[in-house]
């Protein structure tokens, strides 16, 4: 039984179809990244899965339970942790009072350990909390009852880099403890560091669900080649070379440098350049941004302008989701 199963999930707001036939399953014990730019429909999927919105069409099972049946949804919620996009708590309460309420409603297995890790100022009222502190308190309330499944909507927004690091380590440890983690993000490096599989959503439609490695494989390698002497461009016209750029002849001692993305057979590439003397060669994974752009902004690797434009589009703040 999968932790989350979506079958043809559609949510129609009348003017906007925020989710359109979304189908995927999150397996138990995996970390699943739900990726898309702001407004793609990530939050709508999450809030429908949680029963906050009712689906226009499709079925949703959460930990094996049908979420449109309230009794079944309640069963699932006992083993669920959820951190919304922009969590909010009673402003006049202190952090401790919020934790007490949550403990009384869903139990408390491990808040002490979580408080040591995230440390929100418990004796202060929520109205005095910074966004980062609210997020820390939210992380504690999400995990305190030791849920089997955790749904996090843009979880690292508001956390400083040090805490983001701590959060990443924490999520890895949770996965090792067999906790299923589903989180949405528009930050690719975050997804790449944490996820086993990634689902990409664009304009309400699921574009692909793949293991992170296979996305990286498909995106190819980033190759930087530094040769003693200029290499004829002809020799580099191997299948799978994209966006070749060179700055040959910069100076006699510098030789010539070539940069390109490569999606073909690495042996063919090495065979083609065997006869040239190399100063240096590096083959790295392409940045996930490039992979991501394939689903949004055309072939980003061939068009730096498109990359820039699309990257700017994904870097906006996290409040515009539907």
């Amino acid at each position, binding site marked *: 039984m999968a932790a989350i199963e979506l079958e043809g999930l559609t949510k129609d707001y009348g003017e906007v179809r925020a989710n359109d036939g979304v189908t995927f399953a999150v397996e138990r014990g995996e970390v699943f990244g739900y990726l898309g730019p702001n407004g793609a429909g990530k939050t709508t999927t999450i*809030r429908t899965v*949680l*029963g*906050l*919105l*009712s689906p226009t069409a499709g079925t949703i099972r959460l930990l094996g339970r049908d979420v449109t049946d*309230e009794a079944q949804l*309640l069963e699932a*919620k*006992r083993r*669920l*942790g*959820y951190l*919304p996009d*922009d*969590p*909010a*708590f*009673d*402003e*006049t*309460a202190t952090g401790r*009072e919020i934790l*007490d*309420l*949550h403990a*009384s*409603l*869903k139990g408390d297995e491990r808040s002490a350990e979580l408080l040591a890790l995230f440390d929100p100022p418990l004796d202060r009222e929520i109205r005095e909390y910074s966004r980062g502190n609210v997020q820390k308190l*939210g992380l504690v*309330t999400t995990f305190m009852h030791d849920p089997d499944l955790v749904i996090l909507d843009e979880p690292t927004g508001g956390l400083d880099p040090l805490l983001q690091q701590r959060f990443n380590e924490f999520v890895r440890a949770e996965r090792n403890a067999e906790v299923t983690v589903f989180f949405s993000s528009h930050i690719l490096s975050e997804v790449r560091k944490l996820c086993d599989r990634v689902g990409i959503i664009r304009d309400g439609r699921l574009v692909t669900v793949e293991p992170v490695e296979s996305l990286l494989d498909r995106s190819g390698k980033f190759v930087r080649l530094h040769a003693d002497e200029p290499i004829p461009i002809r020799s580099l016209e191997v299948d799978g070379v994209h966006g070749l750029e060179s700055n040959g002849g910069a100076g006699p001692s510098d030789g010539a440098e070539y940069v390109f993305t490569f999606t073909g057979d690495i042996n063919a590439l090495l065979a083609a350049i065997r006869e040239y003397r190399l100063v240096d060669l590096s083959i790295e994974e392409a940045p996930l941004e490039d992979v991501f752009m394939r689903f949004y902004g055309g072939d980003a690797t061939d068009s730096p302008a498109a990359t820039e434009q699309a990257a700017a589009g994904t870097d906006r703040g996290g409040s515009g989701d539907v």
Partner: protein
Amino acid sequence: MFELTWYDGRRRVRGSIALSVGLSALAAMVIWVYPSFEAEVDLDQLLAAYPDPILQVMGVQTMTSLGGFLSFELYTFGWVIMLGLYLAYSTAGTIADDVDRGRMDVLLSMPLSRRRLVAERFAAIAVPILGANLLPPVVVVVGARLIDHPLAVADVLAVHVLSIPYLFACAGIGLLASVVFDRAAIAQRVALGVTFVLFLSESLLTGTDAETIGAIAPMRYYDPNAVLLEGRYDLAGAGILVAMTLAFLVASQLWFGRTDIH
């Protein structure tokens, strides 16, 4: 069960004490002015000077006894109008404000059904309703003795006890507004407006052909004059108010149970 009621209830204690003290001060003031009022003013003449609709709206029957005076100066004004409006307004803020400020997502991620959430939040309104009725009856009974116009203790208690289902019914109007509108400010304005219109419809239409319209107003079933002047306790009316409250609660639960939370 009742974890949320307990949490909400505790957060309402301070406000409810303030409410009780404020209403006690109002009660003390009304009782304090009564003797000089009675001595200096021809009360029947004063009554005759008011146009009938005003007397009808304020529920004035007589000023020539302390019971009649308190009935409109304190109970019609303080309880029927002010507290009724306050509870409708305050309750209208409960659910709508959670949705408005994005707290509902966190609340509903817990193993808590929507019906239970509505019922528990509503139950916590008992704190201001009971709180408002705690101190003032003592002030009224003692104050009346001090100015030598003693009132029947049973009548004073009854006027307060019978106000409890009335105030719950007003809160019920607020609750329904709170689930129908997901903006707290709108829910509160609607609840105030509806409660006030119901009050006017009941008080102005009484004795006219359109009197039946007032039957849906909670104010029809709570009459301080009947209690304080005639010692008549309208238990059937109280029963109707309880039924009304339950109807508002169930309607709110059904509505909130099937609505999308934005």
